[in-house]
Every structure is written in C-alpha cells, then in structure tokens.
C-alpha cells in the first residue's frame, strides 16, 4: 500500500477487487489521477472489501476506485456500500470500472444493478479513457465538499 502526500484535491483508494489480478488498467488510472493532482492510495490486485475500507478510514479518503475485469464484480461488489456505512464512511464516493459483467448485457441494465441497487456512485464501460472519470470526480468532490449529494449520475 503506497500513498502520496498532497491531499489537496482529494485522496483516492484504488484497487482491483476480489479474486481479480487485472492490474494494468488501474495502474494507468492511478497514473492519470496523480498527474491530475490527486493523492493515490494503491492496493493493487486481489484487494478485499475490508482492505478498501481500512485504507479509506486510515487516509480519510474521498473516494474508492474499484477495478474489476475478470467478470466477478457481481460476486465481490454487493455489500460494499453497506460495509462502508457500517464502518462509518457511508458517504464515501465509490466509482467502479473495467469490465463489470461476463459478456455484455445492455449498459443501462448494468448501471441499474451497480448504481441503483448496489449503491455505487458511478460506473464506467471498458473503453473509457481516464479523463472522463477524473472530470466527474472533480465535480463530485467539489459538490460533496459543498454539502450536496451526487448519487445516480453517469
């Protein structure tokens, strides 16, 4: 677990969840986050729910960036929001990206499942370039700090 100093723009805990080792995409994402002035706490592959939450509490993080490519997001992401609530960081931003399903159901269905039902803030399809989530993140953190909720977008 490696962390950067400046928490000015925001601190983000990144990792690949569950039994997943696809690490390349999140490495590029981390690089882009740092380049944009964020502080990154990187868990790497095979990161468990508890590791995300512990790291977030320890670093007072603004957001979790969860990556999942291997098709098992459905086996590892349910319960994450509740666990955050239980741990007292229920309001933390949670973004997910990579390839959240096996095969490719309609994106709106995927969004419904992960955002509406499982309580994530935003999710992204596989071919997203890092700029888009970073723009959203800046906006969301600003809104949070100004006291507004953002859930449900993207």
């Amino acid at each position, binding site marked *: 677990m490696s962390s950067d100093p400046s928490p000015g723009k925001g601190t983000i805990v990144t990792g690949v969840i569950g*039994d*997943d*080792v696809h690490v*390349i995409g999140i490495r590029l994402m981390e690089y882009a986050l740092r380049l944009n002035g964020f502080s990154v706490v990187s868990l*790497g*592959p*095979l990161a*468990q729910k508890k*590791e995300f939450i512990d790291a977030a509490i320890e670093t007072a993080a603004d957001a979790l960036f969860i990556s999942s490519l*291997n*098709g*098992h997001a*459905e*086996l590892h992401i349910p319960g994450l929001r509740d666990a955050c609530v239980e741990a007292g960081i229920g309001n933390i931003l949670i973004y997910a990206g990579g*390839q959240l*399903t*096996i*095969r*490719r159901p309609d994106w709106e269905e995927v969004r419904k499942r992960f955002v509406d039902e499982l309580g994530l803030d935003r999710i992204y399809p*596989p*071919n997203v370039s890092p700029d888009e989530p970073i723009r959203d993140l800046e906006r969301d953190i600003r809104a949070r700090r100004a006291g507004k909720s953002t859930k449900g977008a993207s």
Partner: protein
Amino acid sequence: MSEISAGRVAIPPLSADRWDDARFDAERAKILATWPTGADIDLADAAAFHKKRAPLTNVPRKRAWAKETGNVLIQPYGGVTTLAGQTELIRYLAEEGGADIVPTTIDSQTRNLKFAAAEEALRASERQGAELMNGFPIVNHGVAKTRQLVQAVEVPVEMRIGTVFPQLAVETGFAGGMSSVTAGPIYYTAHYSRDTSFAETISNWQYVFRLIGRYAELGVPIGLQIHGIGTSTPFPNTLLGACCVLETLMAAAQGARSFSIDARLMGNMVQDVAGVRAIREVAEDYVCRRFGYHDAMITMDRKSWSGRYPEDIARAYGIVCYNAFTGMLAGANEFIANSVQEGVGIPVKETNADTLKAIRQVVGMMRGQQAMLQAEPVENETRLMKLEMSAILDAVLDLGKGDPARATELGFRYGLIDIPFAASRQCKNEVMVARDAEGAVRYLDPGKIPVPREVLAYHRDCLDKREAARRRKIDYQTIVDDIFSISRGILVID
C-alpha cells in the same frame, strides 16, 4: 492476512531438487483434505482411467504426433461454470471448430482457493441455468464429473489455470482424465498474485511437477504448457524465453518431460519470428543438453497478442490471422488462440470456433512454406518472373512490329500468350498449369508461350518434386484439385 492465503502450507528451504516421496505424500494428504471432493482422488485408479483411453486423447502424445508429422495444432481458450455448459462448449470447439486440443479454463475463485464461494456460485448457476463464473470450478465438480467432461470429446483436454495455488485443482483435473496443464510458478507469481513469494509458488508448482512425475512412473505421460513470464503489454520475448527455461528446468527435475513452450506475438514480424526460433534453440540447449534431459520433448506454441484487443470483431480477425502468419513463418508447432471476441468478453462458442477456422485457413495455406524466411528464394523467383515476362513481351511486340495492339492480337492468335479456362474462343487454351509442392504455380505445359528455357526447367523441376513427393502424376484431377484447394483451406491437397 487476506482470505486467499488460507490454503498456505509450510515451505521447506527452496531448491529445485526432486522431492522425496515422504515429502510429497505428506503434502498430498494435506492437499486432498482441503475440500471434500479431494477424497475421491486415487492415483492408481486415475492412471488406469488414462490408459483405457485412445492414445491421441493424451496431450503429450498428440503434441509428439504433430511434431513428427508436421501438423500444426490449434487450441482455443474456454471455460464456463456448469458441467453441461462446459461439455457443450468443448464438444462444439472440437466438432465445429476443429480444435486439436480443447481447453478447460478454471475460474478465478478456484484459482484463489475460495472453494466455498465457488460452490455457491456454481449452485446459483445451475439453479438459474446461467454461467455466472469466469471458468470451470473443477474442485467443486470433482473427479467423476470431470471424467464425464473429458469423455465427451475425442481430442485431449488441457487444463488452463493461472494460479499460485494449483495443487487440488490439478489433482482433480489429472484424476479426471486431463493430460496437460498450463504452468508455472514464475508467470503466476508475477501476474496472478500480489503478495505470494516465488519460494511459495515454486513449492506449490513443484507439487504439480512431482505429481506429473508420479503419473509418468505409472506410464501416463502428462504435459505442461510453459508460460515463462510476460505482461500483457509489450515486453521482450527474451524475458519470457529465459523464464520458460527456468520453469522447464524446475518441472523436469520433478519428472515432467513434455513441454509446449510459449512465444508471444508482439507485432514486429522480424522480432516475432526470431522469438520463436531463438526460444526454441535456447530451451533445447539448456534443457536437453546443458541440464541433460535428453528425453524431454519440446514444442513451441505461439500465443497471440495477449494485451488489449479491439472490440471490433473484424479487426480482431486481422490480429488473429496476423499471428497465424508470423507463427507459421517462424515454424510454431501450435497456436493458442484468443478468440476474435477477446476484446468483448468471454466469447460465445460459435465465434470461438470461427476463430479456429480462420487460423486453420491460414495454417492450411502456409503449411510447408518456410522459404519466405530466406531472401534468396524471393530474389530468385523475382528474377525468373522478370525474365519470363520480358521474353513474352519481346516476342509479341516483335510479332506486332512494336505495336502493342497488334502484338496483343497476334500474340493470342499464335498462342504466345495463352491462359487456361478462358471464356473466350480467342484464347488457344493450350497452356496448362499446376501448383508445385509449396503451392507455387508452375507450367505443366506452356503451350506456345515463349517461356525461357531456364524458367521452364525450373518449373518442371518444381513439379517433379511434387510428383515425387506424392508418388502420383499431375493429371486433370490435380488441376481440378488446385482450383478448389484455397476454398477448401489447404493450398496443396495431396
């Protein structure tokens, strides 16, 4: 400590030395006890099961046969959750796709020893009639079901599992009749784990290698596909090659003898062709000679690009076929074939099979053509072709007194230019051509075309070689075969 370390066992000091039987047996008892299905695994019974099956349902034997006969093997990727689903998949890949070896990719819960979670997802899949996992949870299925799977096809099954904890899954696979597994400790430590040490992974895989040694002692050859190392981004194949040698040496020390060694497509032809050749030579040198495993069988498999793929299937065909050409140029023995839906998700079986057909077409067209690697044949052919065209042009222009229109008419009238199967009565139709043994088109009978003597002699020579090779004259049926050969997928059908 993270949940995935649950299955760890104590590690003796690191060495490549062959395990003694006591260590293996003690370890084995512990491994088989980690999940209930382990109780059904019996080595003698497993060996008997393997021996009852046809020789070419065994991976090492199939690879040896292909190497001897010059056949190039094709193996897809593929693993789904349920027995019914996986059976349908490998049957389809073998029967419709013509796969020479079929895969069974193991899911990532199993790879990380989360058997309880895998059990839940498997049962949910069976209940819902859906395939919810990214592979076949072989430990939960157990030996009997794996045997059902393996017996569903007449081609051998290779187990595909990227993991630092392979023992129970591999035990189940081998006892279930699978006769090869993808390995090993270097690649899987680097890319399939985070905190696991090399010492631990090596020990876990030495278990597998020793198990293969045990099967060998019982007369059952079991193969390994050796990955070495390599990211799924551009990297030097030399690193992969060096690590393949290390993995092979570690496996050979425990008694394994059949190795299909990876080389991966990076995209530059020169480097990719050189890669296969260099890795083969270095591996043979270190394994067979320097370390003295004279009886080791080494074949080279070409893995396709293993980084990000386009989502567009048509473009993915371009990558897949490009991999086949450069692999054939390099003399690869086997292709491990990412499907053209690689960039989309786990492929549907139809598309997976289609990918194999595209590769088979390229393989069929290139079989026996290796000359491209040398400049000389191309230079020579270019020279002869220029010579011939100039001879024809000079002769007909002469006839037409320098006028290309008159030259054309007279050239055809007297048959100095002629072509087979013309629609037109203006063509003499006296010329006859056939392919030579490498598929090049040669004059069987030039009719009245003024083909220079040197060229004609060369063509005749090439055709003689084809006739000699197949011990049959080139006749009208051959010409018909040559017309259909490309559409049938083999440039020279003999």
